[in-house]
């Protein structure tokens, strides 16, 4: 059994976020505000992965995420796997996909966009879920997944 699976198996109750691209691990931490958590959080970076080469994994005890939080995550880390654990048993496991609309999560990269000058919640329409391409609802600027910056 691989070590990462051992770590998962050791969780009594909580959530495991797996298959995180290695450079996005701390974006996930920030987005979910894991630094403010008081329960046990295990962050694994640059772990060996057959599929990805290197990957990140985060294990959070006694915490479950809402659909909204998951859809936020999907914007910066599409294709992750979220597993929920109750009593050491995997109760749910799903591959995360991008929503149709991304509200208040991503910053528009157009310096002349109204959202960078007024207190406006950013809104992006997802134009390509596979590639992770977003289009600003206000200025129409397209943002590609590798450019995405959080608010």
């Amino acid at each position, binding site marked *: 059994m691989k070590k990462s699976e051992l770590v998962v198996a050791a969780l009594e109750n909580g959530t495991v976020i797996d298959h995180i691209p290695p450079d996005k691990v701390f974006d996930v931490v920030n987005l979910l505000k894991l630094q403010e958590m008081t329960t046990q959080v295990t962050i694994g970076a640059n772990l060996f992965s057959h599929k990805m080469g290197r990957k990140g994994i985060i294990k959070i005890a006694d915490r479950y995420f809402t659909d909204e939080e998951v859809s936020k995550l999907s914007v910066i880390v599409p294709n992750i796997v979220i597993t929920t654990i109750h009593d050491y048993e995997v109760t749910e496991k799903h591959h995360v996909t991008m929503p149709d609309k991304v509200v208040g999560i991503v910053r528009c990269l157009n310096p002349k*966009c109204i959202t960078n000058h007024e*207190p406006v919640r950013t809104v992006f329409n997802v134009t390509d879920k596979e590639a992770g391409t977003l289009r600003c609802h206000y200025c*129409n600027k397209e943002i590609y997944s590798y450019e995405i910056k959080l608010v």
Partner: protein
Amino acid sequence: MALQGRSLISLEELAKEDILDLLAQASKFESEPNRKILDGKVVATLFFEPSTRTRLSFETAANRLGARVIGFSDAATTSSSKGESLKDTIMMVSNYADVIVMRHYLEGAARYASEVSPVPIINAGDGANQHPSQTLLDLYSMLKTQGRLDDLDITLVGDLKYGRTVHSMLTAMRHFSSRFRFIAPRELEMPQEYKEYCTEHGIVFTESHEFNDEIISTSDIIYMTRVQKERFTDLMVYEKVKNAFILRNQMLSNARENLKILHPLPRVNEIDQDVDSNPAAYYFKQAKNGLYVREAIICDSLNIKV
């Protein structure tokens, strides 16, 4: 009604019927521009960046409809220079006006204003993003001179990279089956995303870096835009191409009889003055058409039909 008392922010939201309905309304205003149907209404023109041409056109439209006009022509003279938010300015003005015509240097400003405003917003240009009344007057000019918007050979010339008007035109023309030619220097060619847009929406187009007689003689519409020096990183390149995209009268000798030359104005030197007397020159009449189109837009945004 196309807008049904709603804002006009982008042509992307308008269906084919909406566009044709607005153009039909504009045609009625052309036959009778002075109609006091907005008596007692107040139209605000908020120009956060100066645009004399567009402002005068909208204000004339409002005046000819019998409305009163309030507003400003430069943000430097308003409280936004004191740091007031756009939202607060819009909320304040909407207490006084029935409709707000807004020009802003920030992209997406009109969309945002329409989301906070209790009265309709008409986008009179938001940065490099949208300028729907310009596009509608371009369409109106094509429809009026050619009798149709389908099956036309439309040649777009000049700065196709940054030219907001040519991008908006493609958005609006997705509903019609005309053919496009994109003629631009390599540095200013049509961006890939717009070419993809054309492909996705079945808009037929070809591209060339040469503006020659063959292209001119097979066009129904030539839409000229300005090749601006400041767009070039290498001024040597600018010097090389600047004369290749100038239209002169002698180039029009083999043109189709129905050819019309359009330009969003202001023109600098991309259309030689010797073209002005050619019957194909339409750019000044095109600007005049803006008045009728804007009368139609203002009325439609107030749910008033003629």
